């Protein structure tokens, strides 16, 4: 059985990727999970400089999901290269770095630093964080902004680049198209849905930032729809995520059109989820007689349903 998938020039040994912000820098899990057994890990979002992020409380649980406003706390690109990358290389991890910026120049500068470093496999451009004031989603909510960030980064790196799209737009597929036209190797989606939870006793928001991003199983059907729309709109691979809790959910995204999938919130619930996901996908492939996982991608049948009784 062949579980390998391709994202541009990058080959992953399997389609299971740890989502940004849900797996630290990967090193936190190195003693618990064989990092080399994951398709890839995406790091916490990194700017040029270190950032402290928002005040706590930063998360609140919601029905079948959670809201977060971390505010992109991070150690900055250079310290990541010095302090985290060597261990990730030793552990055999395939490392995708989630790159942030408040300006187009910052995206390009961070990407350049990472391209010069040994051991970065790809860049995921975070143009979709709903939790910070400048940068991020402001590019991701404008077609021109998306095009400009991707073009600027395209000029400074040979690494595969994968803009991460926000679901907080009306027509997500047009953002996938703008990314493709600007030279992206893939797109990933979805980032979290901008949301709010209020404590009715105190009449205050339950997280310090007020607004936050919704993730987890609650968002899955919308995320699957958006991944499918992007799959139909572009030729480059689409990496899907949003509420994947088990192998069935991962398969659903792949059938909708995802070449690979990312797992975020589920990793909090079950840090040992990875082997369960692989086993579940293998089991499914066996039952449905697939030899390559790529054969599954985009196979959803959207035509008229034939009635099993023939009536």
């Amino acid at each position, binding site marked *: 059985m062949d579980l390998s998938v391709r994202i541009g020039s990058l080959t992953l040994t399997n389609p299971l990727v740890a989502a940004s*912000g*849900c797996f630290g820098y990967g090193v936190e899990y190195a003693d618990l999970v064989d990092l080399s057994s994951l398709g890839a890990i995406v790091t916490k979002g990194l700017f040029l400089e270190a950032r402290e992020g928002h005040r706590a*409380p*930063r998360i609140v*649980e919601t029905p079948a999901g959670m809201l977060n406003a971390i505010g992109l706390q991070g150690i900055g690109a250079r310290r990541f290269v010095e302090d985290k990358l060597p261990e990730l290389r030793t552990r055999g991890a395939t490392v995708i770095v989630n790159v942030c910026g408040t300006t187009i120049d910052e995206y390009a500068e961070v990407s350049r630093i990472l391209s010069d470093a040994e051991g970065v496999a790809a860049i995921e451009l975070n143009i979709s964080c709903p939790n910070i004031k400048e940068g991020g989603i402001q590019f991701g909510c404008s077609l021109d902004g998306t095009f400009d960030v991707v073009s600027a980064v395209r000029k400074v790196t040979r690494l595969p680049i994968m803009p991460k799209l926000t679901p907080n737009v009306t027509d997500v597929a047009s953002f996938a198209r703008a990314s493709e036209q600007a030279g992206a190797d893939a797109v990933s989606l979805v980032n979290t849905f901008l949301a709010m939870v209020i404590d009715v006793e105190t009449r205050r928001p339950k997280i310090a930032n007020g607004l936050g991003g919704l993730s*987890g199983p609650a968002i899955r059907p919308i995320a699957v729809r958006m991944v499918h729309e992007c799959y139909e709109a572009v030729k480059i691979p689409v990496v899907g995520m949003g509420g994947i809790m088990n192998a069935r959910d991962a398969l659903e995204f792949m059938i909708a059109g995802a070449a690979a999938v990312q797992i975020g919130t589920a990793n*909090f*619930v079950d840090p040992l989820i990875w082997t369960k996901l692989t086993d579940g996908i293998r089991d499914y492939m066996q039952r449905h007689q697939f030899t390559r996982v790529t054969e599954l991608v985009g196979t959803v049948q959207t035509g008229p349903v034939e009635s099993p009784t023939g009536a």
Partner: protein
Amino acid sequence: MPFDVAADVMANTRLSADYNVLALSAPAIAAAATPGQFVMVKAASGDDPLLRRPFSVFEVLRDAAGAPAGLSLLNKRIGPSTELLYRAQPGDTVACFGPLGRPFTVADRSAQAWMVAGGVGLAPFATLADALGARSVSTTLFYGARSRAELFYLDFFRRLGVELVLTTEDGSLGERGRIIAPLDRRLAAHAPHAPLMVYACGPEGMLAACAKTAARYGRPCEVSVERIMGCGMGGCYSCVVPMRNDRGSFHHVRSCIAGPVLPADQILWE
């Protein structure tokens, strides 16, 4: 290395209308846990409630031969997950992941140990008292709650030879008021050259007051903080605490991996 255990509920002891002690079969976690560490518990399978909750390891439970067989949690029902854990029955299983986090520094015999607990903040002190007892450290528990009915396990601590200083907000047992008052008086009376270690766990306001009071008398103090946690592994950056750095500013540390036990004098109390 933490273990993920589908732990059978061995017993559920109701202490009051809100508090219970839940005994879980988890030998691997019990054998590895040190005082101050925690476990991440998922009260129900399925997506709702979704996330695990952090709990201090309350007691390490031993079998007839003295080998670690399980652990207990001191639970107070305040939301959906703690409600489920309040209602759990023997035969149920809960997912239990741990031990996690940085433990207390266990004082040695040259020092006295004062543990300061507020409400459910008693949780990490049963195992700490055990460890201190094993080192023959003279130990005092300062323990405050709303009323007599919410002061638990007093005989447990007495049996370990721990001196008790109790306060209740309604005066139904011990001194009326908050626990910081007797702590402050005792600190004032304590010989300055006699080594002393203060440990605290409880509501944020109590921790801040305890930190300030210990600092005023120049005493080292470790606090076990309680933050809303997502993962317990350092993956999500939810449970941060602002700590002073050497540049006169602060740094957000993840209390799940840098803590939950942190040096009180380095925390930037709000």
